[in-house]
């Protein structure tokens, strides 16, 4: 709404924060996302490309595969900044709100009382960038309440807070 939001995705009333602003995630998560994307695309393209090249000598097809992979990867890397900025969460009185995505946007609202487990994980790449991922698990496998890119102390604080809120508001299924 303000000119400063030029870098963040266009404001959309459907995905507006419930109350105050969305809590953003750490921008260090951009590195995690970019590196893991690069690794994924290098692997995905190199396996068939090397197979075709080494076994059948079809190096020109391999070059096309790599080229296409490079184009897709470059376009994805350009979006990393926006994608990380599109993540957001908000703690309301009774519910946790999580939003993410730029092309395919999603907003999840979960009552704290529905908590089964709160998981905090951090892979080697995430640890190197000093971020962690928090996952709020309910009885439904479709609940999409994962917050990546949290500073570790923030993740631990949030985990304790959510656990506490979840316990005081717990309801049977």
């Amino acid at each position, binding site marked *: 709404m303000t000119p400063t939001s030029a870098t963040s995705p266009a404001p*959309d*009333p*459907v*995905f*507006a924060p*419930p109350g105050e602003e969305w809590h953003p995630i750490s921008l260090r998560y951009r590195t995690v996302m970019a590196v893991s994307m690069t690794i994924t695309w290098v692997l995905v393209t190199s396996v068939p490309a090397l197979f075709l090249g080494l076994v059948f000598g079809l190096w020109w097809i391999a070059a096309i595969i790599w080229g296409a992979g490079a184009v897709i990867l470059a376009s994805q890397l350009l979006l990393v900044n926006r994608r990380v900025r599109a993540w957001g969460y908000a703690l309301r009185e*009774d*519910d946790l709100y999580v939003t993410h995505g730029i*092309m*395919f*946007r*999603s*907003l*999840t*609202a*979960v*009552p704290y*009382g*529905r908590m*089964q487990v709160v998981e905090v994980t951090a892979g080697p790449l995430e640890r190197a960038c000093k971020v962690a991922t928090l996952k709020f698990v*309910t*009885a*439904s*496998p*479709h*609940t*999409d*309440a994962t917050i990546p890119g949290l500073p570790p102390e923030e993740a631990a604080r949030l985990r304790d807070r959510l656990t506490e809120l979840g*316990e*005081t*508001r*717990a*309801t*049977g*299924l």
Partner: protein
Amino acid sequence: MPNDVAKEQRPHPATPLIRGWIVLLAILVVIGRELIPKGGDDDPGKGLLSLPLVWLLSGLGAIVVLAALGSFVSWWFTKYVIDANELRIETGMMTKRSRRVGFNRIQSVDLVQPFAARLFSLAELRIETGGGESVKIHYLPRQDAARLRDYLLARAHGDHTAEVTTASTASALTDAAHTDKVIVTINPPQLIGAFLLSGEFLLTLLFPLVALVLSVVFHVWFIAIPALLPVILGIGGLISRRVISQFNYQLADTGHGLRITRGLTNLTSQSLPVDRIQGVRIRQSALWRPFGWWRVDVDVVGYGHQDQNSNRSEASSMLLPVASAEQVRLALAGCLPGIDPDAVPLTTIPRRARWLQWWNFWTVRYGVDAAVAVHELGWLARRRDIVPHAKTQSVRVTRGPLQRRLGLASVHLDTAKGPVDWAVDHLDGTTAREFAAEQMDRARAARAALRRDASPDPAGNPVLSDPTLEPPAPCA
């Protein structure tokens, strides 16, 4: 049985015999399979039949004796105890295993009578705790098993003074107490008709028919015929799953919840606590439409777990394999007491959704009342999902690029694992967001109402506590 508390008991002595019988059957099946001529083999059953008969029989005898010995040992070391607060089952000779099931952890208790056990008036108890693998006790005399089941179910509902009378009369033919109120009975013609018109069966039938026609046309039937064998076996399996195991299907209200009794050879009796039902899906395929048949599935906590032995997960998420509209209405009144899904006011989605869902956008209806959210769609095959507000796990709003261009968005109500997937696509964006926010409020109010209802039990034994929360959820 509940009177002699804390006394160790063993399953019925005939148990090893019956389990041995199953082993014998398995052996016969394996041998039978060897004897059936295989596709390319022009010398059928060469492998086994070339052995002298004496060897074959003595080998068979040895296997049977070993199996019998094994099942005898496992029977001897199986003991179960009913304590003040829990059921304990100890098994194993070399590796001891002791499982404890707290009464307030019990989700449901099923009574299963496999054919062999049925002949001996025995039954198996399967206790679901929601924590994965079900606890089994096999085999008990049928009457004892039924009594134990009733006792466990009563205790699971927090009924401490449960003095179970012999109201439950499990017999070789049925399992019903005179206090049970039968809600729906599915008669064989309806069951078989629905099976013959099910997509599953017709698809399975289509392949061999096409193969047969092609092979006759091209004169290669001698290749096609042996290839049909697995298909025939597949149809046999389908018939056993869909018809034989669903035969004499009966849904009854026991006062402690619903009970499903079914099966021609194996008699299964499932208990289904009403407050465990997380959502209901009613659907009708195009072929069933002229007959007005519907199928009803439910999400039940603790039933989502796969059990390879008996494709249970599918069997037990089913409330009615086939039913008329009137039977569906009765069953819904049984599993969503006090709620009339037909009375829920429904609205449509905007006409501009036709660009994204041109094939049935005009049939989409959704709406809520004080207790449930309803969504229905379809004109050829129809489907309707009902989710009680108190069972909503989370609410999601999603929007793809095309939806954004049209100003539309989708709303999902997430429920526990199961067949129900309540999702309305292509609502107006603002409406979707408002619906989600209001749904959160409705769910909160419904949960608060549940807590108020559950609190009269001061002993801190929440009525059928949440299986996945440890320790039992405190009533805030």
